[in-house]
């Protein structure tokens, strides 16, 4: 995810770039009318996403987005566009990703931006871009929506990684356009959005050739790129549009999307009210406590269940799970990006258990419908965001909660689960509603519909060490599990009663806050993903982890490091010791 952007600028730039004075609050709100860098056009069954980055459109001041290089702002638009294709354009059966610039498909992440960014910004940026690219593959696998990269110019670094996330890559054969991963030879870092993983794991490039490719700054073009399996086809410029159109039509023909007449659901702007440290959406509430460094995220369950999918479709983006997921996704992204010092998230739900269970049943009964399928997929990706969030996650399961099926996955995504045993004894005296004891209820969402990035369910990961325990938990599907049952089944960590509750939570939060945030991030990431590897887990667990280390090393980020010296004309001065 890097760029060959403007090597002629080498003379103007001083080495180390000053960090931006203050990182502005990042918003993920956008819509096609507001895009500055992408164009989304739909022609029958094929949508085309065209990248034409506005040089002066950086999300943070201090750099120019030359040569179709991107930053977080560019990627927020891409993420939004893919979401809209999923929900607003069910008629679309294939997506073409291409560039509007001459001879430049995409130069990857902007180097000036990377060199100037604090470490946390780089990490968050990479995580989001990775999730967006994983989203392409998720759409192909689960929504029948394949992607085609029409690489009509050079695709370098993150530009080639964008193409790698697509099902097919067609490279223009103009004797100059190449695909490349120049990070190692030019910048002293890794291609950090899955490039190395996908080259060998997804495309099956032979490892020695991949080694040559990843150390050749100018990249590979033409027939050789095809032979090495770096691209699927190399096509003369004059044949390029036809070949892209042909392949797109072929992909569309195999799609399982509903096609014309399905009627999309418009994603209207999110309603978000912020009052100090409290943010309210319709179905999600986020309350920050800066003293204790916590965010309490409460997801509200459904108030009613649609009778038919037609009714669901009429509700549009106001339908409960779609709306709640959009809000939760937005809350997660904003907290991740804007609230770095809020290190512990307390995850809650509020709502009626029976209604939530009925909503799950409704979704399960209609899962063949494209809108239900898209909604479940969106929710699945959002819970996956929790898995890869570098915050301590504690689920608080209290009377009045509705950790049922899909919503229960929020609890299982957490690092620990606290479930109140019994009831709030003093509720009546204190004038609060006397609520029955909290329950957890499992359904099919917990046993297969919402896998993690390793393709295992959270229950499978949780009970990796015991098939019997997994079987016992899965056999509890449909039962209302009280705290004692949940504890016996190993679904919760601890079950304090109302006398101990407040103190237990306070102590565990304070204790968490006293540990090294870095060590916690590493520890949690290691404990969350037990079990087998997939390319996706490798992207987050191996590529990203190494990249984050390299980003901290003087060889990349030091004043004489490659990332800081890139474009200055000065050569990086490496510490030659292998670590």
């Amino acid at each position, binding site marked *: 995810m890097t760029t060959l952007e403007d090597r002629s600028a080498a003379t103007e730039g001083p080495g180390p770039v000053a960090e931006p004075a203050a990182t502005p609050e990042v918003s993920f709100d956008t819509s096609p009318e507001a895009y500055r860098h992408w164009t989304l056009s739909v022609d029958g069954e094929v949508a085309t996403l065209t990248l034409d980055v506005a040089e002066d459109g950086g999300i943070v001041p201090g750099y120019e987005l030359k040569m179709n290089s991107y930053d977080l702002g560019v990627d927020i638009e891409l993420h939004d566009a893919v979401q809209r294709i999923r929900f607003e354009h069910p008629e679309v059966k294939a997506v073409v990703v291409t560039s509007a610039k001459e001879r430049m498909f995409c130069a990857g992440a902007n180097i000036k931006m990377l060199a100037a960014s604090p470490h946390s910004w780089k990490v968050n940026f990479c995580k989001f871009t990775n999730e967006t690219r994983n989203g392409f593959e998720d759409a192909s696998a689960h929504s029948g929506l394949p992607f085609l990269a029409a690489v009509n110019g050079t695709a370098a670094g993150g530009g080639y990684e964008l193409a790698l996330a697509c099902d097919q890559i067609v490279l223009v054969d103009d004797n100059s356009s190449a695909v490349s991963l120049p990070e190692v030879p030019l910048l002293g870092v890794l291609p950090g959005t899955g490039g190395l993983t996908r080259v060998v794991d997804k495309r099956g490039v032979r490892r020695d050739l991949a080694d040559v490719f990843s150390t050749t700054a100018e990249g590979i073009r033409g027939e050789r790129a095809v032979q090495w399996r770096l691209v699927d086809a190399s096509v003369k410029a004059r044949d390029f549009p036809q070949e892209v159109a042909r392949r797109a039509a072929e992909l569309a023909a195999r799609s399982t999307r509903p096609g014309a007449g399905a009627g999309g659901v418009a994603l209207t702007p999110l309603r978000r009210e912020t009052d100090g440290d409290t943010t309210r959406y319709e179905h999600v509430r986020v309350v920050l406590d800066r003293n204790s460094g916590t965010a309490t995220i409460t997801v509200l369950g459904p108030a009613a269940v649609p009778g038919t999918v037609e009714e669901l479709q009429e509700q549009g983006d106001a339908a409960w799970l779609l709306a709640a997921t959009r809000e939760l996704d937005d809350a997660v992204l904003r907290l991740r990006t804007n609230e770095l010092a809020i290190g512990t998230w307390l995850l809650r739900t509020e709502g009626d258990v029976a209604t939530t269970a009925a909503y799950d049943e409704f979704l399960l009964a209609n899962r063949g419908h494209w809108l239900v399928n898209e909604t479940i997929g969106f929710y699945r990706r959002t819970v996956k965001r929790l898995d890869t969030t570098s915050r301590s996650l504690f689920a608080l399961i209290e009377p009045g909660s509705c950790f049922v099926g899909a919503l229960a996955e929020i609890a299982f995504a957490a690092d620990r689960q606290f479930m109140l045993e019994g009831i709030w004894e003093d509720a009546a005296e204190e004038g609060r509603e006397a609520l029955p004891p909290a329950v957890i209820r499992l359904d099919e969402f917990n046993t297969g519909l919402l896998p993690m990035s390793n393709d295992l369910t959270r229950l499978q990961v949780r009970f990796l060490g015991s098939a019997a325990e997994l079987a016992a938990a899965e056999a509890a599907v449909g039962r209302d599990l009280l705290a004692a049952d949940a504890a016996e089944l190993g679904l919760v960590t601890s079950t304090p009663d109302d006398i101990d509750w407040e103190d237990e939570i306070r102590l565990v939060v*304070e204790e968490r806050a006293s540990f090294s945030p870095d060590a916690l991030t590493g520890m949690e990431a290691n404990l969350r993903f037990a079990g087998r590897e997939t390319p996706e887990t490798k992207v987050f667990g191996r590529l990203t982890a190494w990249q984050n280390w390299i980003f901290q090393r003087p060889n990349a980020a030091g004043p004489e490091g490659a990332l800081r010296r890139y474009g200055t004309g000065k050569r990086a001065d490496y510490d030659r010791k292998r670590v």
Partner: protein
Amino acid sequence: MTTTESTPQSGTVTGDAPRPTGPLSKIDYSERIPNNVNLAGDRKLQRALESWQPKFLDWWKNLGPSIPTHDVYLRTAIAVGRDGWAHFDRVPMEEYRWGIFLAERDPDRTVAFGHHKGEPAWQEVPGEYRSDLRRLIVIQGDTEPASVEQQRHLGMTAPSLYDMRNLFQVNVEEGRHLWAMVYLLQAYFGKDGREEAEELLKRNSGDYDSPRILGAFNEETTDWLSFFMFTYFTDRDGKYQLGTLKESGFDPLARTCEFMLKEEAHHMFVGTTGVQRTVQRTAQLMKEHGTDDIWEYGGIPLSVIQKYLNFQYSVSMDLFGSEVSSNAASYYTAGLKGRWMETRRKDDHLLTDYTMEVPGIESGRMTTRTVPMLNALNLDLRNEYSADCENGVKRWNQELEEAGLEQRLFLPHQGFNRKVGAFAGHHVTPTGEIVDEATWERSVGEYLPTAEDRARVAELMVPHHEPGEFAGWISPPSVGINSLPVEYDYVRF
């Protein structure tokens, strides 16, 4: 060591238990468990104690004093005021009211040392220090019932009713100190705390499978001389540990320990006067018969008393831990455990720029090395302790001097018989000479009680259970308990 008992107050009953506040539960807690922590109004604590108290009583029945008695003249703390904490009455031991008392709260108290110096003292456990504080409290709590277990059969061989009563007083107060630590665990540490509180009753002194945490508390107290030595030297370690916890930034712990220190003073009194009365009798017999070997006259030879002293002092020194300790440093910096008399010390109470000389042995010679003060806090406390121990030895030597004898008792060298810290693994004589293994093996019988010494002392341990009667190896005290005559029937059967 002065105590309320050595300077008795008038009257037998002083001070009232505080009136219960808050909604009354089925059990009248303020009656059964005297307290100043609003137990009657604290649902959480009540429930915790409801389950714990019967287990405590079972423990007391099974592992408390083994000799059956009708009642004992005991002091019970029923309030924290000047009057309330020394309430005397005849009590059947199983009906003793173990209470929960904290010294009065100073609303302006701040953390006096370490990283949090100057911040308001913590009224709740900071999550960051939860496990460290729990560990400190559990270790302290573990020692309290241990000594009761170690001393359970001593009542059988008491040299007098007066001494038997003192033993029981020490026992019930150790029981109350256990209560105090259990209170903290249950009131401030949630479920983990309750579990630790139960564990305190499950571990037993000397139990092979589930021993007490610290070594010195797994040694059986075989006879009354070792009991007196134990209360003088080992309980004094407890006093110094309490003194450091009294400085803690965690206010409830500080206040609990402050109150416990008052009771600990009585244990010191039992030890000081017990050894003193033994030495007094020994000196009397030595003078009378013109010999050191007074076994045949029913006394304990001074050399044997010295050996008992050597043993108890050295194992108690081990309780302070290693001279150089990173735990001690982090407890201090965290504000969990201060120094003895922390607030009276004239330094910055941060100690990051100070150093201290720490003794040790290198190449067969006594040396010292300079270490950061923060790491030497165990030694700092141990030095305070040693200086305090000297006072008792002076008092005992006064008996010898008054009898016109030349011999004197002395504290052995800090390196003598050590199993923990810089001197562990070396052989150092009581006078501070470093000797080799063979020499040590040859002479250890002169330094530490031999099996024969212990057997002969045990032979002297003949019970005297009639009011006013005293065994021949010990002198009677000059005054009784709480202004009562020495001949009072302090224990009734």
